């Protein structure tokens, strides 16, 4: 089943194309990371998909509801964590959670149970009766996550969910996202690419309103894999590097020091041939191999590479 699908979704502000012809299919229970530089169109996309902005053209469905038709039906099935969650400062977080539960028409007993369960989850149970006005940014972010989950949403939109959190808070939120994926599709935009890499199984990269690529993280890493092999040996690899220089299907072999250890890095001219033949060459060298890998790029490497290539074009 598809949780989010868009066809030619576009949003123009005058002549500015904030979002141009977005076509996306996100399956149920996926964690989708939406990446892009500032002003790329990430927040516009979230606004369109949550019914806070009207598309100039195109259509979209979220959790089985067409956007723009009946936003009330859509909103009962989604949760939203805005980039800067705002609250009524005179309320306590417990009061706010109950209010949100009432707005979702949940029965009283479920509101009480969900409130306590979610405040526990985001570690705000002890401060649940304090006024939100006295909360730190991180506490507000955690409360924002809790309130977005009260209705057990089918699709959860999170705009920069970890940006205001310290490293421990970030880890907790990421673990929470991993747990939520069992029942919820998560659409998160983020600048913190290592977070995306850790929790997302699909990513989309957007630039200047245009979706540049969308793929699973693994497929993207394979597609943009550098043809670089790394090897570590117990013995000094100096002579072996010299012998690699004679092989025509390899290029630029060199020793680099990583964490005080000499590592051979070599680029394959033909990566598939090198995958088959390089282990035999290593075996013939008689050295004791401790590490051998075809290095995969991080999401950050891919992101930078894609956007740099686009700028060159």
């Amino acid at each position, binding site marked *: 089943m598809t949780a989010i699908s868009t066809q030619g979704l576009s949003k123009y502000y005058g002549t500015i194309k904030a979002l141009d012809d977005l076509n996306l299919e996100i399956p149920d229970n996926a964690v989708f990371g939406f990446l892009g530089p500032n002003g790329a169109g990430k927040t516009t996309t979230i606004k369109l998909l949550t019914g*806070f902005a009207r598309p100039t053209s195109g259509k979209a469905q979220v959790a089985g509801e067409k956007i723009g038709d009946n936003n009330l039906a859509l909103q009962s099935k989604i949760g939203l964590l*805005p980039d800067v969650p705002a609250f009524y400062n005179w309320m306590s977080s417990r009061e706010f959670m109950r209010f949100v539960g009432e*707005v979702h028409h949940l029965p009283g007993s479920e509101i009480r149970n969900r409130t306590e369960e979610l405040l526990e989850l985001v570690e705000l149970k002890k401060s649940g009766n304090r006024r939100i006005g006295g909360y730190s940014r991180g506490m507000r972010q955690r409360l924002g996550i809790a309130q977005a989950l009260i209705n057990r949403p089918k699709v959860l939109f999170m705009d920069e969910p970890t940006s205001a959190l310290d490293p421990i808070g970030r880890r907790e939120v990421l673990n929470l996202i991993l747990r939520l994926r069992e029942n919820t599709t998560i659409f998160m935009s983020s600048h913190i690419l290592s977070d995306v890499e850790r929790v997302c199984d699909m990513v989309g990269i957007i630039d200047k309103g245009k979706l540049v690529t969308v793929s699973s993280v693994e497929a993207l890493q394979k597609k943009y894999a550098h043809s670089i092999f790394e090897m570590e040996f117990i013995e000094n690899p100096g002579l072996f590097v010299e012998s690699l220089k004679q092989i025509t299907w390899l290029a630029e072999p060199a020793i680099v020091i990583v964490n005080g250890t000499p590592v051979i890095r070599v680029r394959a001219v033909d990566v598939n041939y090198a995958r088959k033949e390089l282990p035999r060459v290593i075996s013939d060298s008689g050295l004791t191999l401790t590490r051998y890998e075809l290095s995969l790029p991080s999401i950050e490497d891919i992101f930078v590479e894609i956007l740099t290539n686009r700028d060159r074009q």
Partner: protein
Amino acid sequence: MKGFAPLLRKEIREQIRTYKLVIVGSVFLLFGISTPLTLKYLPELLKFAGDEQMVIQIPPPTAVQSLAEYAGTIGQIGVLVTVLIAMGCVANELRSGTAVMILSKPVSRSAFVSAKLIAMSFTFLVSMAAASLFCFGYTVWLIEDTAVLPFVGLNLLLGLFLVFCLAVTLFFSSLFKNSLAAGGIAIAALIGQAAISAIPIIGKYMPGKLLSWGTDLLSGSGENYWWALAITVIVIVLCVYFSQRFLKNRDM
């Protein structure tokens, strides 16, 4: 009007917890109590302030004079207070982001707007009822007895006029994210309607005529302005309708 009941409960709690009810109530009570007291004791106050040789002839105050002066004060300062209280009701929520938090839930824009208007009206009507009770009590006690029904009629018309002012301000608050801009334009609009109320032919259709009608009830003279009353109600409904339309159509 989905989500109206929890929104209204929240708005009324907000009126109480953010001290709006206390502030408006205190201001109105001050007018309600001070008007008959000032009228009654003005000659004594002037004696303390002035020269003993100076003679000022002040006719003894009447109940109608006291109640009409109270209504006049509410019709001026009270209107200013309605604008101050209502100018940020939607604009501040749009600016701070709480509107996005709430409207991302299954609540209709009309419930969001009308809950605000009803909660603010509650604050002003409760404050006005308390102030009027004190004003009437002090007037009867200090000045003279008078009929209660005309004063009730005056208060109903005055209350409706204040709800009209709240609705106009709420409408402008939905248009702008800046509460000062909303308040400024609302004041300009209310002054504009007051000016039009003074024009003989079309004035009798303007909401401002409710104030003259109320004062006329006290003296038992003057004419009824049913058209002004009907138009006031229509404008209130239109303000709510267009506020929610603007919220529905605007990108947040």
